[in-house]
């Protein structure tokens, strides 16, 4: 789960990490009021859940009232990577002397939380990682003891010479680690972390992602969720135990398991078709899930054929078959459905489906071919 910059910085502020004075605004009027309160110059920043906002012109410095109104007008309503800007953050402009990058994430390789720090702040960190990987210092944190003060100091010494800044930095890093753990984050970045003209550290921009698996114990994080329309569908799906991502093709897919679902999409493409979605009905068998999944698929008007690809393990094929029949009884399905069942209770499942006029096939490849063929025939 992703949140906006203003939300990440609110969490930083809750943990006493210094951030600039700033006000969230929904209109040009809001921006004008905010600038009056904060005093010019201010920075107006688009709040969207996508990267590359700076390059897209979503961040503007305003020194005069005129510049301010122009900036607000330009940014509000702007499109950034498919997201419409509906709110901006108006922040007091800060003079600074140096920019740094610090971030925490989970490293699959060492199976631990890793702290990253770089003097190359204020730019896209992926670029730094590619062009000058040695400029990023990485520190593996022992999960049982956490980020110890000495380690926070070691990191700070990589960035700062002045002992006053080392101490400020170490303290800030400990807070960043604490909030990362407390909120079950999967990413917490400050970029840039600056030294202000007054010689203190401040987080000028922030970014946080969270572990979806842990949201059940993070009600405050969950409250910050602001999904787009597509994401709303994905979230609703998730609440029903389904993992769903909408795509642009015309073959609706219903598969059990993420890997098989991806392989199903791949094979549809290999045979010349276009999947309409990624849909994983997950690892536990339950007829209701199949009904929910069918409803989800059929809600997309682009879908011209459905390919159901089930390899039973924990999911029992007979449950899936029952679910398909229940779903068909409850809805008026006009498009063709190709079903492939293998694995646990596949024989029983196929037996159940015999009573219907669904197309049943033996392999993934066949199912894909058949679904593409039938989608082409559907008006």
């Amino acid at each position, binding site marked *: 789960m992703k949140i906006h910059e203003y939300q990440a910085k609110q969490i930083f502020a809750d943990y006493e990490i210094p951030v600039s004075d700033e006000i969230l605004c929904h209109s040009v009027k809001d921006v004008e009021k905010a600038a009056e309160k904060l005093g010019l110059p201010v920075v107006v920043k688009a709040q969207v859940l996508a990267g590359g906002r700076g390059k897209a012109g979503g961040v503007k410095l305003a020194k005069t009232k005129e510049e301010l109104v122009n900036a607000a007008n330009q940014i509000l309503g702007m499109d950034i990577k498919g997201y419409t800007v509906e709110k901006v953050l108006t922040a007091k402009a800060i003079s600074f002397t140096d920019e740094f990058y610090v971030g925490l994430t989970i490293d699959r390789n060492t199976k631990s939380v890793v702290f990253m720090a770089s003097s190359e702040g204020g730019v896209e960190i992926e670029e730094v990682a590619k062009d000058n990987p040695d400029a990023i210092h990485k520190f593996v944190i022992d999960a049982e003891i956490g980020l110890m003060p000495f380690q926070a100091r070691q990191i700070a010494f990589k960035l700062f010479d002045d002992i006053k800044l080392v101490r400020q930095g170490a303290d800030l890093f400990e807070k960043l680690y604490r909030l990362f*753990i407390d909120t079950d984050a999967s990413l917490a970045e400050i970029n840039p972390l600056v030294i202000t003209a007054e010689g203190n550290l401040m987080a000028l921009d922030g970014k946080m992602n969270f572990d979806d698996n842990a949201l059940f114990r993070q009600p405050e994080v969950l409250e910050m969720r602001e999904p787009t329309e597509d994401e709303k569908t994905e979230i609703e799906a998730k609440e029903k135990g389904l993992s769903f991502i909408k795509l642009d093709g015309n073959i609706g897919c219903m598969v059990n398991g993420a890997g098989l679902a991806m392989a199903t999409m791949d094979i549809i493409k290999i045979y010349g078709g276009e999947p309409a979605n990624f849909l994983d009905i997950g690892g536990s068998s339950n007829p209701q899930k199949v009904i929910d999944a069918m409803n989800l698929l059929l809600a997309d008007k682009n879908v011209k054929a459905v390919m159901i690809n089930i390899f039973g393990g924990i999911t029992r094929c007979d449950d899936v078959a029952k679910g398909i029949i229940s779903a068909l009884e409850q809805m008026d399905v006009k498009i063709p459905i190709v079903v492939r069942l293998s694995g646990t209770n596949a024989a029983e499942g196929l037996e159940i489906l015999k009573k219907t006029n669904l197309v049943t096939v033996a392999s993934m490849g066949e199912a894909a071919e058949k679904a593409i063929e039938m989608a082409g025939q559907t008006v």
Partner: protein
Amino acid sequence: MSILINSDTRLIVQGITGRDGSFHAQKMKEYGTNVVGGVSPGKAGQKVGDIPVFNTVKDAVAATKANATIIFVPPKFAADAVYEASEAGVELVITITEGVPTLDMVKLMPYLKKNGTKVIGPNCPGLVTPGEALAGILPGNIFKKGNVGLMSRSGTLTYEMVNQLTTNGLGQSTCVGIGGDPVAGLYYEELLEMFENDPQTDAIVLIGEIGGDAEERAAKYIKEKVTKPVVAFIAGQTAPPGKRMGHAGAIISSGSGTAAEKIKAFEEAGVPVAKKPTEIPVLIKERLGK
């Protein structure tokens, strides 16, 4: 021979009185796995089928000398169940549970290392040594004893692949589903080492997917240490980018986790990558000179 489990494995089932736990306990037993007990707090003395139930893993181990466990408890309690198994001295812990918070796994890892506990999963289908033992939710009937070792990050795709092997006359030594979560127990490198040292295994199938850099690391390991033939498959070659992948993940992995990069890494390590599941048995047969 085989790796990790065999006919000497004494398996217990944590969460045996739940829907999935009881169903699969019996399926595993039917397959021939030596399921010696189950754990469900407050249900000691009961039986699931003819499998005795205990209140704690400690009690179960004391009574049954179990050396492996499979976990079916809800995500909220999964990490605790792994701790309990590790503390009770169980050597191999298979965690089926899906949706375990990542930081729970991160916090577990040092403890498991300290205790020398091997973990598979979470969010995995388990593993099978055909004809000897099945510890997981995999459909037993698709497997066949043989000389191909298989490891996979995904669940049902594993079944698909095994099915391809079996229907093409290629039996398996052991098939391991390592799970799809960001932080998990045994991974490609450890399993490659085990298969390399297993006399029964003559060829290895590695099934990967997009995201992370585990496949790239596996390719490097194969190049340096593995002498047996390996063939691979990568799921998600056509998947849209940017889902479930933060910036920092990409930074850490020094790559973006795309299928193209993984395929390139494998090809550089001399590992052919199948485009469709049906190509896997063909590639294996080529390598084994059949």
